[in-house]
């Protein structure tokens, strides 16, 4: 079964994604921060990495660079909803969302997902990146 590593500092988001992807038959690991995610990947490289962009300490763009530096073929999905808004809702069209995802793309993300996304978008993005 293809494996997926999810890196998101919001535990409930990570767990929700885990449930969706496990139902689709993927083997899923969830970690709560950038450093932790990179270490988890080094221990057990996943086929697909899904990382949030805005996280405390190590942000997603650095996660992507760290993984890309050693693993050119790993498939990576970056996700963001703007960040830095505290309790406010995700803002998919916000300047920050666009900028963060553009930075993630430039760092080597294969796909970007704008929060909020639904489970079909998530599953479709993962499937697109896996060999048929």
């Amino acid at each position, binding site marked *: 079964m293809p494996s997926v590593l999810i890196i998101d500092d919001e535990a409930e988001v990570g767990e929700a994604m885990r449930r969706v992807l496990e139902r689709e038959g993927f083997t899923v690991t969830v970690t709560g921060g950038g450093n932790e995610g990179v270490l988890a990947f080094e221990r057990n490289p996943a086929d697909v990495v899904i990382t949030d962009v805005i996280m405390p300490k190590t942000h997603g763009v650095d996660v992507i660079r760290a993984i890309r530096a050693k693993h050119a073929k790993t498939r990576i999905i970056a996700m963001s909803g703007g960040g830095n808004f505290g309790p406010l809702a995700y803002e998919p069209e*916000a300047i*920050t*969302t*666009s*900028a*963060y995802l553009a*930075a993630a793309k*430039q760092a080597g993300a294969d796909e970007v997902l704008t929060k909020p996304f639904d489970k079909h978008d998530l599953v479709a993005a993962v499937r697109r990146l896996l060999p048929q």
Partner: protein
Amino acid sequence: MPRNSRILIADNHGIMRDGLCALLAGLDGVEIVGTAANGADTLRAVDETTPDMLIVDFSCCATTGTDLIGQIKKRRPELRILVLTFHKEDYLIEAALRAGADGYVLKNEDRAQLFCAINMLSEGKRYLSVAISERVTSGHVNAQGPGAGRTRPARTLTPREIEVIKLIAAGQRTREIARQLSLSHKTIEKHRASLMRKLGLKTATAVAAFAITHGYHDS
């Protein structure tokens, strides 16, 4: 799309600098000539890269953000300065515009606002995003600064004209407005014609739309 703009980006967040570079690099006629993370670097980069436009977040220079804008405008008055920030406090907006900022956009606004601002500034115009424009025209922010009057015709309205435009926005007809303000029908017509001339509006519908979009409908 922007016309041949050489842009310098000043922001204390590396990911934002990277992201803006990546985002704007895709626009026709835009060249990113450099980035800076703080006030001192920004001043140096302005001298070294001679940009046409500076996109700056106050946060990159803490409490001296507006001083930085003032300093840069003194040295390079022709340099277009766009503030791109999360800060929406009235006193900061006002200080930035007084210091000489040519545009002000909030980071959590739609990206189209950023592209529009770059386009307008590159054509020598000023630009306030929708959220900021509403603060300014509703009187929360006094934006008297270099050229402020060009973008804020509403500030030239008299108190009576403001009363009239509010009632137009509330859907009232001339006779109703006259009755409410205890004025004659002809006097209201005169105020209406005057405010339309000042705002460059041709129809009553345009007046109502202006009033609603500029915050006169609920105050």
